[in-house]
């Protein structure tokens, strides 16, 4: 295969492939991006859902502890009982308006742990939230009541008759981590507060999350140091997971919640478009390659065939010309021999026959020259002053015997009697081809009509028959070389070159040969231009040149 065809084939397949691949990858990338974003949103919403549970838990704490603190008021004994009895309470505090811790007192023991705790409480008291409370109302949320102690849940609700004051969260770090304190401010700027039992609220957080996630999901609760406090759902290996995390709401705002999905679970949808795209690309490449190869080979075969036909025609023509020349030579010699001998009736009859032989061999020679001219190049025109009608008559005369044999009537309406510059051989070639077509295709008992007319610049010759004609769709094709409308075995013999040669000849004569659309039969119109003959080289006969 020539290099340029290989390159063309490569381009034919590679270019669309690259374009489709690029577009496809962009689509997939965008889709991936969108799906990832969607997934991220989904994960976030799952986390927000969870966070709502924690918010509910903190509200529940707030409600209950506010009620407890309201009831205890500033009574130290009640505050102490609250600390001793409530599982949720690690310490209770009473602070005066200047932020001094009134209760609990500094411990009598010298246990450093207790002393440290007292210091922490004092610090909490000093920094307690003062001023307008935020908008977090103590919510009446009984959803999670079950996870709080029954002791707290029962009996103490009835006391919350006075208008509830708003409690405020406060956080600090002590004893390995976050500690939560809740303050109930009083009108005189003093306040009571509790420090929640850390182990307890951590256990409640654990208890308030669902027992398990959906398949493949993994949730985790992380503390301020990003250590995992609790993990639930299916374990997801760290290295191939998609993660999302959010900060938890107050009072656990330094903690976070995370959500993980295994990367492999994501493969099921966002990466999937690659598969059909890849399949599409592969099939397109295959189709284009096959098509390209098919076209390439078909074209090559066509070209080889045409080459063969042309070389065949030229071979045959050359092979024919030599014996023809010899025939003409010996005809000439025979005539001279005849002239030397005495005149007799047989002599004149023989002379007449020799005339026919000469005439026919000349004609055959012209046809061969036409073919050679068609396939091998362009000889110059041999223009002489001739009457077109004479040429037509001479040509039709040679066809008469076979036309009569086929019962084809000839109808000549000739009106081109003015002598013009023309190449008799070329015109003869054109007419021979057209008339032999009529002879071949018009069929038994048909009619051949030849008309001629002249304008100052043109001679127009129409060859009309009432045979089957040419279908409209094939008109363009008939002039192409080696085109035969009916290529079946039963069709008349021929090379498919006749009309091509005829048109070629007409155009060389500065004219044209066209097919005139007609309802019945075929109608060819030959136009010969003889106004300004440019291609004038009348003295050089085609034969002689070819022969020499």
């Amino acid at each position: 295969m020539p290099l340029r065809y290989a390159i063309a084939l490569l381009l034919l397949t590679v270019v669309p492939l690259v374009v489709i691949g690029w577009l496809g990858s962009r689509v997939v990338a965008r889709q991936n991006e969108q799906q990832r974003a969607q997934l991220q949103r989904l994960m976030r919403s799952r986390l927000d859902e969870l966070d709502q549970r924690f918010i509910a838990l903190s509200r529940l704490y707030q409600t209950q502890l506010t009620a407890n603190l309201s009831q205890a008021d500033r009574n130290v004994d009640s505050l102490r009982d609250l600390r001793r009895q409530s599982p949720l309470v690690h310490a209770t505090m009473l602070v005066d308006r200047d932020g001094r811790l009134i209760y609990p007192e500094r411990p009598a023991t010298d246990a450093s742990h207790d002393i440290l705790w007292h210091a922490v409480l004092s610090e909490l008291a000093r920094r307690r939230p003062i001023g307008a409370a935020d908008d977090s109302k103590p919510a009446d949320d009984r959803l999670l009541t079950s996870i709080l102690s029954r002791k707290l849940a029962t009996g103490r609700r009835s006391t919350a008759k006075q208008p509830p004051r708003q409690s405020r969260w406060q956080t600090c770090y002590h004893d390995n981590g976050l500690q939560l304190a809740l303050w109930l401010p009083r009108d005189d700027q003093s306040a009571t507060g509790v420090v929640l039992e850390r182990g307890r609220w951590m256990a409640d957080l654990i208890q308030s999350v669902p027992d398990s996630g959906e398949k493949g999901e993994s949730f985790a609760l992380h503390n301020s140091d990003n250590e995992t406090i609790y993990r639930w759902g299916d374990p997801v290996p760290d290295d191939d997971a998609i993660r999302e995390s959010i900060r938890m709401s107050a009072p656990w705002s330094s903690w976070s919640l995370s959500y993980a999905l295994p990367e492999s679970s994501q493969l099921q949808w966002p990466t999937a478009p690659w598969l059909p795209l890849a399949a599409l690309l592969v099939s397109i490449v295959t189709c284009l390659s096959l098509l390209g190869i098919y076209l390439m080979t078909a074209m090559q075969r066509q070209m080889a065939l045409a080459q063969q036909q042309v070389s065949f025609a030229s071979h045959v023509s050359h092979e024919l010309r030599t014996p023809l020349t010899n025939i003409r030579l010996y005809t000439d010699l025979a005539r001279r021999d005849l002239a030397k001998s005495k005149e007799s009736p047989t002599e004149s009859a023989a002379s007449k026959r020799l005339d026919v032989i000469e005439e026919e061999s000349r004609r055959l020679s012209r046809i061969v020259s036409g073919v050679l001219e068609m396939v091998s190049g362009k000889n110059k025109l041999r223009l002489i002053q001739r009457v077109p009608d004479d040429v037509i008559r001479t040509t039709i005369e040679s066809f008469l015997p076979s036309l009569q044999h086929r019962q084809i009537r000839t109808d000549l309406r000739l009106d081109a009697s003015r002598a013009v510059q023309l190449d008799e051989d070329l015109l003869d070639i054109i007419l021979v081809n057209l008339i032999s077509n009529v002879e071949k295709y018009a069929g038994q008992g048909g009619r051949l009509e030849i008309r001629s007319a002249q304008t100052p610049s043109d001679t127009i010759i129409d060859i009309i028959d009432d045979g089957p004609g040419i279908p409209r769709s094939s008109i363009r094709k008939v002039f192409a070389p080696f085109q035969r409308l009916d290529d079946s075995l039963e069709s008349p013999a021929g090379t498919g070159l006749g009309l091509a040669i005829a048109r070629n000849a007409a155009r060389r004569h500065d004219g044209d040969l066209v097919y005139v659309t007609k309802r019945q039969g075929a109608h060819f119109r030959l136009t010969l231009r003889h106004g300004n003959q440019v291609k004038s080289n009348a003295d050089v006969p085609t034969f002689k040149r070819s022969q020499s």
Partner: protein
Amino acid sequence: MKPATSACRIFTGSWLILGLLFGSNLHAEQVQLDVRLVNPTIKSGAKQTNYLRVALTGFDMPSDKERPPVNVALVLDRSGSMSGEKIARAKEAAITAINRLSDQDIVSVILYDSNVEVLVPATKASDRESIKAAIRSVQANGSTALFAGVSKGAAEVRKFLADDQVNRVILLSDGLANVGPKSPQDLESLGRSLIKEGISVSTLGLGLNYNEDLMVALASVGGGNHAFIEQADDLVAVFNQEFDGLLSVVANEFEINIDLDPSVRPVRLIGSEGDIDGQSVHIPLAQLYAKQERYFILETEIDAGESDTTRPVADVAVKYRNLKTETMDKLTSHVEVRFSDSDTEIEKARDLEILAYCTLQVTTERNRRATALRDAGQVQEAQKLLRQNADELSVVRLQCADAGVDVVLPELSQVEKSNSVQAESIIDVKKWGMLRKGMRAMQNRVEQQQTYGE
């Protein structure tokens, strides 16, 4: 019920003495309260330290049928380290435990590795077969989310929390908590909260890789037992002992309050968790077993007094739920101190039995300190403390033997022996891991006056 262990024998002994003191079985179905000072008579004219002991003794349940129902959560470690023999024994132990429960009891089974799974949600033990089948299916792998395991166990117990039953979480672990909160403080905090709800936590440490500090802390604040189980083979026996105790609880929901006279300053509770607030001391106690004596020692500082006068020291009030009679019972006691110039009189009045218990607790606290010193690499100092313990215990033991206070002798000699053995073995680095677990278990056993152990 079988009073199999030495500890139990001591308590049985003291129960008999109390029985003699009261002279009758009039209070046979009530918890006995005994409040005494080490030195009922003290030197006049100076501020002095004195130890107050508050002791409670459970009565005997007439028959097994009347025992209160239990609500127990078995929290089993199924992390990777438990695989093989350990998980097999643990399953066997759990199944044995399930077999001992009656239809009225409530049980739940929680498994934890890196996640927590509620294998059997709290349910009546009547459907034993399906519970046991679930336990048999357990396989071990993963990490150790101990805190979450206990949390979930407590949550299961909480579902059917009732005053008239014994609420208990039993935690079995053989490894270090490595997922979730893992500091003793956090576990203590959880245990402290649970005990306020009436849920006690027992911890069973299996093998040599668990964190005994964490397990002991959880059990001691959680009002439960702790056991160090060296061999998986012993698991079933320890579970049985735990259930012996669990199934013999006669009273719970204790509120023990000591109100001290203004002239008496509470210094600290020795060997037990409590809440000292001004002149008021509150001691949490989850439950009392049949015939178990449980005591608490409060170190006090008494202001100077004049010779031949008496002064009130403390009023003790105990409220509890009697699980036999299903009533809230109340006990009160009052203790006074006498001031004297005479040393002989003071010496003579000294309560050697109380002294023995105080010494046990004080030496145990020292034993704890020795453990910490050994941890810090101060082997000599630790050894010195342990030897001092052995010596002090030996002195007290001899004193008690002379005075005929025999009831405390076995415990004294056992702890004395342990201390002297520890003093010698503590140098050996290879044995330290195991010895430490033994020491921590002993400390907890003495402090909690556990009904089973070594």
